[in-house]
C-alpha cells in the first residue's frame, strides 16, 4: 500500500508537472500584482503603446490559432467531409479553450475588467469595429461552449440533453462560420485606423482579407500541430478510428492549407503592388517582411504540398509548426514590431518580464485544462454508448 502511494506520488511529481506548478504559482503572484497594483506596475505599456503582448499575442494569436474549430467543423458538417469527423472534437476543444483564454487574458489587459460586459449589455457602440469583435467573440465563445457540451454530457451520462444539443450541430456550425468570418477579418480591420503608425509593408486596405484568409490555414496547421502533440502524449486515449483517420486529416488539411497559403501569398503581393511599396523591400523592414512571407508562408506552403504529394507526414508536421510560428510572427509584426515603427527606440515597446510571465501563465492554463478534459471526456475517442458508425 505504502509502495503504491509512493509510486503515485512519483508519477505526480514529474518534471513537466513541477514546471507547470511553478508557472502557475508565479502566474498567481503576477495576477495578484496586476489586480492590486494596476497595469503600470506589471507592464511596459504607455500612451504610445497601449496594446502590448497581451493583445498582440494572447488575443490576436489566440483568435487566429483557434480558427481550427470553425475550419474543421465546416469541413465536416457543411462540406460533408465526414472523414474529418474524428478531428472535430479536439479542434472544438482547442478553439473553445483558445477563445476562453482570449477573454481571460482580456481581463488582465483592460483597465477596468469588470466593465467588459458593458459594450454588449449597457452601451452598444454599433459603429465601432471593436464592438463587433467583442460581440462576435462573446457569441462565438457561447457557440463553441454549446458545441463542446455533447462530450461533457457523454462523460456525465446525460443522454437526453446531449441528444438535443447534437441536433443543433449544423445550425451551430453555420453560426460559428459566420461569426468567425466577421471577427477574424475585423481584427485586421482594427489596424486600418492607424495608417501612419503601422509600417506600409504591413498596412494595407486588404488587412481584413489577410487576417481572415490567414486564419484558415492557421486553424488547419493548429489542428495538425495539436494532433501531433496528442499522438505523442495522449496516444493511449485515442481509439482505433482516431488513429486510422488522423493521417488522412493531416494530409487533407495539408493540401488545403498549401493551396490557401499560395492564394494568401498572391494577395499579399497584389497588396504590395497596388500600394506601390516595392521600394521598402530593399530596406531592413523589407528583409523582415520577406522573412515572414517567404520563410513562414511560401516555404511551409511548398512543404505542405510536398508532404501531401509524397505522403510524408514529417514534412506536413514541420510545415504546420512553421505556419503556426508564422502566424504568431505576423500578428506580432502588425500589432507590436512594425507598429509605431517611426518612434525613436527609447519610446518603442518591449514587454516586461511580468507581461511575458502572464502570457506564459495563460498558455499553461490552456495546456493544463486541455489535458484535464482530454484525459477524462470522450474527445480523442468515441464514447462506446454513442458510436455513430
Amino acid at each position, binding site marked *: 500500500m505504502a509502495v503504491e502511494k509512493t509510486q503515485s506520488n512519483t508519477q505526480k511529481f514529474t518534471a513537466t508537472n513541477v514546471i507547470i506548478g511553478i508557472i502557475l504559482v508565479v502566474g498567481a503572484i503576477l495576477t495578484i500584482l496586476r489586480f492590486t497594483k494596476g497595469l503600470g506596475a506589471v507592464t511596459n505599456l504607455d500612451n504610445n503603446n497601449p496594446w502590448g503582448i497581451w493583445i498582440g499575442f494572447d488575443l490576436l494569436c489566440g483568435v487566429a490559432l483557434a480558427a481550427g474549430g470553425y475550419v474543421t467543423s465546416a469541413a465536416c458538417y457543411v462540406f460533408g467531409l465526414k472523414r474529418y469527423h474524428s478531428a472535430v472534437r479536439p479542434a472544438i476543444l482547442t478553439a473553445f479553450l483558445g477563445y476562453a483564454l482570449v477573454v481571460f487574458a482580456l481581463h488582465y489587459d483592460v483597465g477596468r475588467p469588470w466593465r467588459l460586459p458593458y459594450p454588449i449589455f449597457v452601451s452598444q457602440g454599433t459603429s465601432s469595429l471593436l464592438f463587433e469583435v467583442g460581440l462576435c467573440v462573446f457569441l462565438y465563445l457561447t457557440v463553441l461552449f454549446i458545441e463542446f457540451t455533447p462530450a461533457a454530457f457523454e462523460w456525465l451520462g446525460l443522454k437526453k440533453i446531449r441528444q438535443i444539443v447534437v441536433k443543433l450541430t449544423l445550425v451551430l456550425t453555420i453560426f460559428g462560420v459566420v461569426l468567425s468570418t466577421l471577427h477574424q477579418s475585423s481584427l485586421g480591420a482594427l489596424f486600418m485606423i492607424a495608417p501612419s503608425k503601422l509600417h506600409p509593408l504591413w498596412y494595407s486596405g486588404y488587412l481584413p482579407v489577410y487576417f481572415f484568409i490567414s486564419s484558415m490555414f492557421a486553424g488547419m496547421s493548429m489542428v495538425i500541430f495539436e494532433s501531433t502533440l496528442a499522438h505523442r502524449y495522449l496516444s493511449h486515449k485515442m481509439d482505433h478510428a482516431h488513429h486510422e483517420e488522423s493521417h488522412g486529416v493531416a494530409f487533407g488539411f495539408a*493540401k488545403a492549407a*498549401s*493551396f490557401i497559403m*499560395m*492564394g494568401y501569398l*498572391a494577395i499579399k*503581393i*497584389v497588396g504590395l*503592388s*497596388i*500600394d*506601390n511599396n516595392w521600394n521598402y523591400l530593399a530596406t531592413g523592414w523589407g528583409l523582415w517582411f520577406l522573412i515572414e512571407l517567404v520563410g513562414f508562408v511560401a516555404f511551409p506552403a511548398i512543404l505542405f*504540398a510536398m508532404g*501531401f*504529394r*509524397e505522403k510524408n507526414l514529417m514534412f506536413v508536421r514541420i510545415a504546420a509548426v512553421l505556419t503556426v510560428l508564422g502566424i504568431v510572427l505576423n500578428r506580432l509584426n502588425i500589432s507590436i514590431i512594425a507598429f509605431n515603427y517611426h518612434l525613436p527606440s527609447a519610446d518603442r515597446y518591449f514587454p516586461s518580464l511580468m507581461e511575458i510571465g502572464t502570457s506564459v501563465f495563460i498558455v499553461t492554463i490552456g495546456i493544463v485544462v486541455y489535458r484535464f478534459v482530454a484525459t477524462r471526456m470522450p474527445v480523442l475517442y468515441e464514447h462506446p454508448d454513442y458510436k455513430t458508425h
Partner: protein
Amino acid sequence: METIMYTLHDFMTHTKNITYLIMGGILIFLPLFWLFLNEREKD
C-alpha cells in the same frame, strides 16, 4: 529606376498596370499549382 509620378492618375495607372500583370501571373500560377498538388492523386 525610379518612376516619376506627378499626379494621382499617374500613380494609379502605374500601380494598376503592374498589379494587372501580377494578377494575370497568379491566374496562370494557381491552377498549375493545383495540378502539381493533385498530380500524384491520379496514380
